[in-house]
């Protein structure tokens, strides 16, 4: 495990370097003078010169990158031009909201997706399986922003069961208030991913259920539940885990849209507002943090393999 961990971390370094270069270049790849891009066509020469000096834009690009990277490492992620505040605390506060939403969605998607996939595989060709296939097809064809509206309309506006926007009531609330606000956005975000997980789980389980050792277990007269969960599911879990790991990116990306629908104060809403305001330090902060989280999630998924399946040894 130790050498593999080191090796895996070393592989991550060039990726992180590439990510940092791409995020840094966001400002410089925009056509025209970066200061003009940020301040717009009506900016005065004085304000342009001030901004160039503040952001270090008057220096060579490698020097600017070095300064920027040193700032990133030491916790100085620059200041938001629009909100006049430090980027890192701002992004971190919003990122926590995104993490809560993403974690809830992932739990719901994984739970419902795996259950549906397993049941579908066990009842392959039967009515339940056909219903599950249709459900998953609908699930991953429904755009999150449309499903979000439908849920808002049905469970928020018509039935009044759940609040339709925000993370807490305006006057503030506790955990129960947070959970009530979380249900609709989490279900919306989970739908597409849960459908994909169900689909992949079904395919993997069908494969495993046709193996000789499963047939042997059945022939021995073991209970169906035991065969499915103790023999088949345990062996299907590695591919399913891979699928779950891959969905982290979809969750983080999909959160952008879902946050917009439900007014959830996460990084998605922050990123969209920053892009519209041409607030590049903030855009860089959001994209860097989300990319770091995504790279970390992939790393954790890889490492989990070794824990879940003792047959896998990377040493």
């Amino acid at each position: 495990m130790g050498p593999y961990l080191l090796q895996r971390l070393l592989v991550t370094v060039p990726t992180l370097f590439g990510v940092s270069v791409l995020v840094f270049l966001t400002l410089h790849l925009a056509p025209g003078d970066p200061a003009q891009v940020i301040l717009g066509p009506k900016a005065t020469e004085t304000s342009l010169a001030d901004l160039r000096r503040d952001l270090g834009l008057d220096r060579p690009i490698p020097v600017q990158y070095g300064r920027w990277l040193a700032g990133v490492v030491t916790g100085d992620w620059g200041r938001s031009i629009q909100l006049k505040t430090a980027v890192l605390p701002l992004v971190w506060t919003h990122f926590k909201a995104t993490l809560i939403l993403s974690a809830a969605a992932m739990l719901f998607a994984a739970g419902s997706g795996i259950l549906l996939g397993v049941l579908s595989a066990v009842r392959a060709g039967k009515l339940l399986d056909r219903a599950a296939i249709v459900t998953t097809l609908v699930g991953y064809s429904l755009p999150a922003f449309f499903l979000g509206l439908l849920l808002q309309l049905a469970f928020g506006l018509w039935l009044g069961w759940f609040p339709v926007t925000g993370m807490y009531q305006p006057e503030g609330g506790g955990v129960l208030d947070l959970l009530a606000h979380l249900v609709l956005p989490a279900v919306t975000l989970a739908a597409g991913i849960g459908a994909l997980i169900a689909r992949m789980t079904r395919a993997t389980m069908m494969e495993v259920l046709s193996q000789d050792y499963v047939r042997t277990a059945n022939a021995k007269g073991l209970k169906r539940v035991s065969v499915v969960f103790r023999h088949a599911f345990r062996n299907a879990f590695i591919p399913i885990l891979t699928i779950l790991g891959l969905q982290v990116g979809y969750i983080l990306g999909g959160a952008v849209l879902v946050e917009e629908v439900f007014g959830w104060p996460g990084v998605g809403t922050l990123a969209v507002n920053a892009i519209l305001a041409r607030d590049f330090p903030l855009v860089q902060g959001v994209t860097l943090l989300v990319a770091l989280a995504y790279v970390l999630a992939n790393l954790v998924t890889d490492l989990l393999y070794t824990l879940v399946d003792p047959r896998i040894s990377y040493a």
Partner: protein
Amino acid sequence: MTADTASQTSRRPSFQRLFLREPVTLVASLLLLAVILSALLAPYLGLPNPAEGSLIDRLQPPGTAGHILGTDELGRDMLSRLVWGGRVSLVVGFAAVGFAALLGVTLGILSGYLAGRFDFWVQRLIDVLMAFPYILLALIVVAILGPGLVNTMVAIAIAGIPYYVRIARGSALALRESEFVTAAQAAGAPTWRILVRHVLSNSLSPIVVAATLDVGFMIMAAAGMSFLGLGAQPPISEWGVMLSDGRQYLRVAPWVSLLPGLMIFLVVLTLNLLGDRLRDMLDPRTLGR
């Protein structure tokens, strides 16, 4: 033909069986065809101007005389806007897939076939691009280029390139070791000819399936970007913009948002269904299942 291959061939799901004899697939094909035809023929259908409306007629419900699907907040005809919106959404979806597939497949096949340093650097680039969730990568490109319909199309296409690079590279890696490629090399065929006639042509099945499934995804992504206010801008009739504009009238006039949302859903659903069927037809692993 041996008995084995003969039986396998007979078990291969045929185009006729998959597309015409299954009612669901047939309905999906017809629905998609109707949307595509109405989008193509929009100027000739005699529909009202989708950008013009009368405030007296604002927020009329579906079924109103003269406005079969009702009107929006500016009194514009919903049916006309949906048909013209389909034109924009379909063009963006297909063009983005075309652009992503062209660049991704070219890069992937070159990377897999040439291997060596070229492959190494292409793969590092793809690793970096894949370190960003899809929508985030598209957002970065929009941040660079600025909001707008064309920029959004370019953004979602660029974000989609890694997907095609991976698929094409995988095929090219396998094919470069095959006997017919070795034979072509031994016969002195130029590299471009081997790439096009042997590698590309034999990699097409997975690429076509991936592209078909990707059109729906790209339509959703483009509509999503417009929904966020970064793609098509009002007053353009585009499904994502329409859905977003109608949100503030959700309580009093839900059809303004729900109808464009339903159109996106139906088109994506039919494309996914047809993509699945196409995969069943072209993927040799489905033989006999």
